């Protein structure tokens, strides 16, 4: 991995939900990389949870962008050190109001073999959930809201 590749800060944030067609385009771009044997993709979808009789209809995501992107750059670099055969790693997270049923998060890793792609995605998803300053306002159907907290 070159220094340039390692330290480039990529913007992971997208305004609005993640379009499945975008994911298809992202998958299709890898057909020229014939050293890839395995893709692992995690997608987060907004759930319409009902707590105390109130149902989530959407989550409004905000982020401390500067810190989140710096944290993500470190996580990405560490991932390529932990799984040296990883071919690529794509991360997107939504900002703004995402309705229940829509996609808000994607982690997509590719590698020659499945074990690396699988482990890298699980690890990156968990790191992002615990370390990126992203905030979620769960908007209920009744007009109220609750602030989401990752456990």
């Amino acid at each position, binding site marked *: 991995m070159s220094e340039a590749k390692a330290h480039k800060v990529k913007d992971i944030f997208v305004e609005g939900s993640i379009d499945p067609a975008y994911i298809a385009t992202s998958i299709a771009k890898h057909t020229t990389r014939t050293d890839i044997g395995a893709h692992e993709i995690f997608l987060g979808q907004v759930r319409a949870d009902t707590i105390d009789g109130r149902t989530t209809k959407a989550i409004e995501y905000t982020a*401390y962008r500067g*810190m989140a992107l710096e944290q993500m750059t470190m996580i990405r670099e560490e991932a390529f050190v932990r799984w040296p055969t990883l071919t690529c790693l794509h991360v997107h997270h939504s900002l703004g109001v995402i309705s229940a049923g829509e996609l*808000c998060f994607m982690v997509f890793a590719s590698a020659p073999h499945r074990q690396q792609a699988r482990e890298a995605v699980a690890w990156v998803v968990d790191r992002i959930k615990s370390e990126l*300053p*992203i*905030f979620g306002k769960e908007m209920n159907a009744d007009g109220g809201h609750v*602030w*989401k907290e990752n456990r």
Partner: protein
Amino acid sequence: MEVLLFGLIAEKAGARRLELEAPTLSELRARLAERIPELSALSYAIAVDRVIVKEDRALNGSEEIAVLPPFAGG
């Protein structure tokens, strides 16, 4: 110095930025508690120059300070 507020903390403060002066992080915490009375009941972390800092430290006023409620990404 400018203090950035996010999520629930910004909501409670009624603002996304505060202008506060403090020579140390512990004094900054005290100023924040005065300005946002609800803060003592909330879980939050403070980032100095985009890194979460738990111990006390001196501040020179040029740092980027942020008050962060629990993370909820993903």
